[in-house]
């Protein structure tokens, strides 16, 4: 086998044992790597209903056939598990030296099973695995943890760790690496914490197997230079991802005050120009050609590495416009190892719930000091933080008084920083994202504005969402590789099948990837259905508040505008029709068989009604 190492490292934390296993080339070609591998393994190995925070859940660290070799932005690793936040398959990609080191150690996949009796970290050195007490690391933040382990094992060692958020099983705790990198929004850090696993360290010395190593090296060196030059010419990295903040504000797509408003006269204080001017350092992932990690100083003087999602959710969404205070919140989330987006979304839900009289409390929008205190309480599960640590949806269900209406989430995962109250296609993208509301699955706001009609619900928008989910699931989440050269600089998609072919000796086209993307998305949705057998189309709705005329903007360019339920339902039906899913949003047997999931269709049918085929649209209403 070329491209893949073909090896799985399975580690039992309960028994302190490990073994090397092998996967077949057929498995590799069917699932590519990254998300594809993780999804199939978790489908096969986890029984339905398994407790996400129990020892039977499994934590996966997964790579793919071009991971770790010098190619444009190829330093990504996928971390995956069943999510404690959404109750279904979940993953995240994270830039890390572990991408290179794990491949050099001879593995594409690590599976962590069971639960250690005491806090530990695991060290992988080629074929040897050792288990180390982590009592002195437990209770430390991710910055200190990274530093201690780097001092011990070297700056290029592959290190993944959790902070206090993961230790305390905050349901949106993430996995962290290289100080500024994070992955696994739907609580992968909590799963790691539930296993008493503080960190994973990997060092490898082997060659990564490539079908054509000379061509891989030549192509990699050349393309790294080309993408780097494109970034330099375009000046994309000057403002990085936060360039989009002022555009979202101008287009009325910014989350302000828990999405109650979509524009703010104060947003300029946090825009890409301001954060770029405040920059004190720039960071990136391994093999990165367009480093997007802009570090600014927070109120306490820490370097805080920001991107748009952090700024949007911890800034305007909480009505905090003091850049240093916003940066402090971001730094705290990073150090505690909790997701900035869900922290922002949960805190804004809390402020809104108090404001609406659904609960009592002393937190108001704009109160940065209290927001910081609440962030600490979330990470440590102290006081009200214990409730908020479960995320906005679960917290709202406990609080009641209709406060679920203000939880801006889909499938339990808080929305990224795009207000979709009048962007129907992006609302569909969030609604149908199989891991919950995440921008990495599909983002079509520019498409809606430039090539469609903003307020329209045409089939073209459903098709665009499907197209992007196919591309992102198969290429970017499964190779895995960073999507920024493609989405931000226009680096041609056709490069990626070529990389894959050079690595594996295959002869794939883009169409092969898209077919695999359909397989992956069908199984991701099937996973949701297996865990939620009574599921229906409402699982794919965006936050209900977007349909409420009462929260439509009072002024500005979308004054009085909101989503319309009957039209959204029709758009969703178009999406299901394109996907070949039934009107509940369950993949049909015919669709699953057509993408090579016959066995999985049988398995799903044991717990959930699986239709044989779709009723054609037009004969079934919505």
């Amino acid at each position, binding site marked *: 086998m070329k491209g893949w190492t073909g090896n799985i490292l399975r580690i039992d934390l309960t028994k302190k044992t490990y073994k090397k296993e092998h996967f077949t080339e057929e498995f590799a070609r069917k699932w590519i790597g990254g998300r594809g591998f993780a999804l199939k393994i978790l489908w096969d190995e986890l029984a339905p209903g398994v407790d996400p925070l129990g020892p039977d859940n499994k934590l996966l660290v997964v790579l793919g056939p071009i991971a770790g070799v010098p190619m444009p932005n190829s330093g990504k690793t996928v971390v995956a598990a069943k999510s404690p936040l959404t109750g279904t398959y979940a993953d995240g990609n994270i830039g890390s030296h572990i991408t290179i080191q794990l491949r050099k150690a001879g593995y594409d996949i690590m599976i962590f099973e069971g639960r250690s009796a005491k806090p530990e970290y695991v060290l992988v050195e080629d074929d040897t695995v050792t288990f180390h007490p982590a009592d002195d690391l437990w209770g430390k933040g991710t910055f200190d943890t990274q530093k201690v382990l780097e001092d011990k094992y070297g700056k290029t060692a592959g290190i993944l760790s959790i902070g206090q958020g993961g230790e305390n099983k905050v349901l949106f705790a993430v996995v962290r690496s290289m100080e500024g990198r994070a992955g696994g929004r739907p609580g992968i850090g909590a799963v790691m914490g539930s296993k008493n696993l503080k960190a994973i360290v990997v060092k490898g010395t082997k060659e990564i197997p490539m079908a054509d190593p000379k061509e891989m090296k030549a192509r990699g060196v050349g393309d790294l230079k080309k993408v780097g030059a494109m970034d330099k010419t*375009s*000046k*994309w990295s*000057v*403002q990085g*991802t936060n*360039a*989009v903040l*002022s*555009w979202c504000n*101008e*287009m*009325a797509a910014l989350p302000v005050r828990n999405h109650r408003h979509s524009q703010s006269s104060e947003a300029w204080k946090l825009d*890409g*120009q301001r954060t770029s001017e405040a920059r004190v350092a720039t960071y990136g992932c391994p093999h990165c050609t367009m480093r997007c990690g802009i570090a600014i100083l927070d109120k306490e003087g820490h370097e805080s590495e920001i*991107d*748009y*999602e952090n700024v949007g959710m911890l800034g305007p969404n909480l009505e905090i416009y003091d850049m240093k205070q916003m940066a402090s919140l971001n730094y705290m989330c990073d150090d505690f190892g909790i997701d900035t987006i869900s922290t922002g979304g949960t805190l804004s839900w809390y402020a809104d719930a108090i404001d609406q009289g659904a609960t009592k409390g002393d937190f108001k929008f704009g109160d940065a000091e209290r927001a910081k205190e609440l962030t600490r309480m979330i990470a440590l599960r102290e006081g009200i933080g214990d409730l908020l640590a479960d995320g906005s949806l679960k917290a709202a269900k406990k609080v009641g008084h209709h406060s679920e209406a203000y939880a801006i989430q889909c499938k339990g995962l808080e929305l*990224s920083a795009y207000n979709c109250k009048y962007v129907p296609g992006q609302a569909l993208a969030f609604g149908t994202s199989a891991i919950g509301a995440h*921008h*990495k699955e*599909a*983002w*079509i*706001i*520019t498409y809606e*504005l*430039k090539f469609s009609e*903003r307020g329209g619900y045409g089939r073209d928008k459903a098709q665009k969402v499907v197209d992007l989910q196919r591309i992102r699931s198969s290429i970017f989440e499964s190779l895995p590789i960073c999507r920024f050269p*493609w*989405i*931000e600089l*226009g680096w041609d998609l056709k490069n990626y099948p070529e990389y894959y072919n050079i690595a594996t000796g295959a002869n794939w086209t883009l169409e092969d990837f898209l077919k695999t993307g359909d397989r992956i998305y069908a199984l991701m949705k099937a996973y949701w259905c297996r865990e939620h057998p009574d599921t229906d189309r409402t699982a794919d709705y965006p936050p209900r508040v977007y349909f409420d005329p009462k929260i439509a903007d009072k002024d500005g*360019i*979308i004054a009085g505008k909101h989503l319309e339920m009957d039209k959204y339902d029709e758009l969703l039906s178009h999406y299901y029709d394109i996907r070949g899913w039934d009107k509940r949003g369950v993949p049909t047997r015919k669709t699953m068989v057509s993408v090579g999931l016959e066995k999985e269709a049988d398995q799903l049918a044991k717990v959930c009604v699986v239709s044989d085929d779709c009723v054609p649209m037009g004969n079934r209403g919505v």
Partner: protein
Amino acid sequence: MKVRVRLIGRFTETLGFTEKDLSFRGPVTAAGLARRLCLDKVEHVATREGRPLADGDPLEDGDRVVVAPVFSGG
């Protein structure tokens, strides 16, 4: 006539301003504005009052036009 132009993201870096008035001697379209900004060969989105402008759309005195790179989502 005067058109107020608001640039977004990397256009502010490459063109050296964020927002300013541009004067035109006669009628101008969205495509004409893009030419004036040397963005006619660069993929971009121009909007007025949040609505996208087609190349041939005429601009009016006092319009405020937002010109942004094509974002594809973080």
